[in-house]
């Protein structure tokens, strides 16, 4: 294949040139600046920043809470998607549209609203208080905020896969005497596993980088309720650009690994679909 296949349409040079130029200025050059800044540090300084007790504490919270939030969404995302696809009930279309609300709602708004609902005297927080469950200003609050903002990813990944499930296969299984649970495990689950995993990974990737909604509900105590993006901001506020860049690089590398995983999972899902339609 030559560099570009011939076409009668004009404008390739103009649009391709503009695209790559703009991409370089807005995205690639700034990313290069971060990588260069972090790698120009002394190895010792880099590792002592990235592996400091405070940084390790922030990774534990950021990754732990994100994993938990993604797992919660794996379960509830599936239940919601199933409800929307399989059952008809009043208000279904409204709920379906509302699923995207966390995408559209600015994170600062989610943050202050969740905090006021789950604070000790909040609508829901007051009923949890007698059981000794504190949500706002603890790691639970962080998990809750991450669950809210990553929920649409899980639902929207599973929904199309559930629609694709071939009902005639389900019918055949049940006609042949399979129970509902057996049919679910052997017919439905295998078709939607790639979608479930994609939703999980997308939710996790979004949750790890989240900042706006978390800082209001977390209380921001070092080592306890301090997420990694907040630690980066703290480094910046102390004009420690190197330290911020080092932590930024760690997060960036993790994001790229996640992105790669998502692409592989989606390729796997497509391959399965092709096999199913054959």
């Amino acid at each position, binding site marked *: 294949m030559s560099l570009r296949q011939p076409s009668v349409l004009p404008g390739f040079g103009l649009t391709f040139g503009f695209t790559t130029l703009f*991409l370089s200025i807005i995205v690639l050059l700034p990313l290069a600046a971060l990588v260069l800044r972090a790698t120009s540090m002394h190895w010792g300084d880099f590792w002592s920043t990235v592996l400091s007790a405070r940084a390790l504490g922030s990774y534990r919270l950021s990754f732990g809470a994100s994993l938990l939030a993604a797992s919660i969404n794996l379960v509830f995302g599936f*239940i919601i998607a199933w409800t929307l696809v399989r059952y008809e009930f009043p208000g279904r279309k409204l709920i379906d549209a*509302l699923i*995207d609300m966390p995408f559209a709602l600015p994170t600062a*708004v989610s943050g202050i609203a*969740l905090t006021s609902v789950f604070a000790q005297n909040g*609508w*829901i927080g007051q009923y949890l208080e007698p059981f000794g469950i504190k949500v706002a200003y603890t790691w639970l609050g962080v998990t809750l905020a991450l669950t809210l903002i990553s929920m649409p990813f899980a639902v*929207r990944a599973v929904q199309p896969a559930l629609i694709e499930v071939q009902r005639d296969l389900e019918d055949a299984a049940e006609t042949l005497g399979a129970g509902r649970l057996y049919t679910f495990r052997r017919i439905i689950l295998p078709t939607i596993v790639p979608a479930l995993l994609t939703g999980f990974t997308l939710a996790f990737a979004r949750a790890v*980088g989240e900042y706006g909604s978390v800082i209001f509900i977390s209380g921001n105590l070092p080592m306890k309720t301090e997420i990694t993006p907040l630690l980066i901001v703290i480094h910046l506020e102390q004009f420690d650009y190197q330290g911020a860049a080092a932590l930024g690089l760690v997060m960036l590398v993790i994001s790229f690994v996640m992105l790669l995983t998502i692409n592989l999972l989606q390729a796997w899902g497509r391959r399965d679909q092709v096999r199913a339609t054959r």
Partner: protein
Amino acid sequence: MAVLPTSAFADLASRPGQRTWLHAIVRWLFITTSLGFLAAVLLAPLATVFVMALGRGISAYLDNFRDPYTLAAIRLTLLTAAVVVPINTVFGLAASWAIAKFEFRGKSMLITLIDLPLAVSPVIAGLLFVLLFGLQGWFGLWLQQHDISIVFALPGIMLATMFVTFPYVARELIPLMEQLGNDEEEAAITLGAGGWLTFFRVTLPKVRWGLVYGMVLCNSRAMGEFGAVSVVSGHVRGLTNTMPLHIEILYNEYNFLGAFAVASLLTLLAAVTLVVKTLIERTGYRRH
């Protein structure tokens, strides 16, 4: 979005085994769990925004919008969106034309690079521009000598917003244009129409709903962005404070009425975004 034709539900209802008590219980469990989860995590926070904002009556609510700093924040947010959305729209159109209309080497690499900002934490997006244009940054000294400020000023806010909303229009248009194909454009060109005429009279009408869809999402994110803008803004009241940042300042001053009043505007914006999005999906346009 998943919208099933109504006949699918009629089909479901007529299936054998759909009227047993077990099925009814399972159905009830699923619907209650879904609605309960959404009510606690999504609907309660949404309702609380308006309850808190209107807690002392309509006139107290409206008073918040007489505050000059709040007005300045609203103006800055509108200005930022007015600059960022058109630029990213032009970029999205150019990128989708290059990618969807031509076959070239490195295409999938280019698509991945365009999607990159979606995988980057907003805080890091802000950090990138501080590292480039901040006082200790690459161009920091030069900018200071020439008395140009980017970070902690308007250009920084716009650059950071442009970064986080970069892929929104492009990722709507690329799959749409690929799906619609090149036949009509090729016919137009073969019949003697110029490139620009073909673009404005053939391509643009074809992809109009995808374009609006992408622009609406881009606008929503541009107006609501917090993390990236927070890092580059410097939080100067009346000057570099956008609406989301102003919410944080009011909230940290325990001015909850004010914070939720500004939040209610952004919530309305989100609601409008969802309505427009749903209406576009009604036209038959589907997300890919």
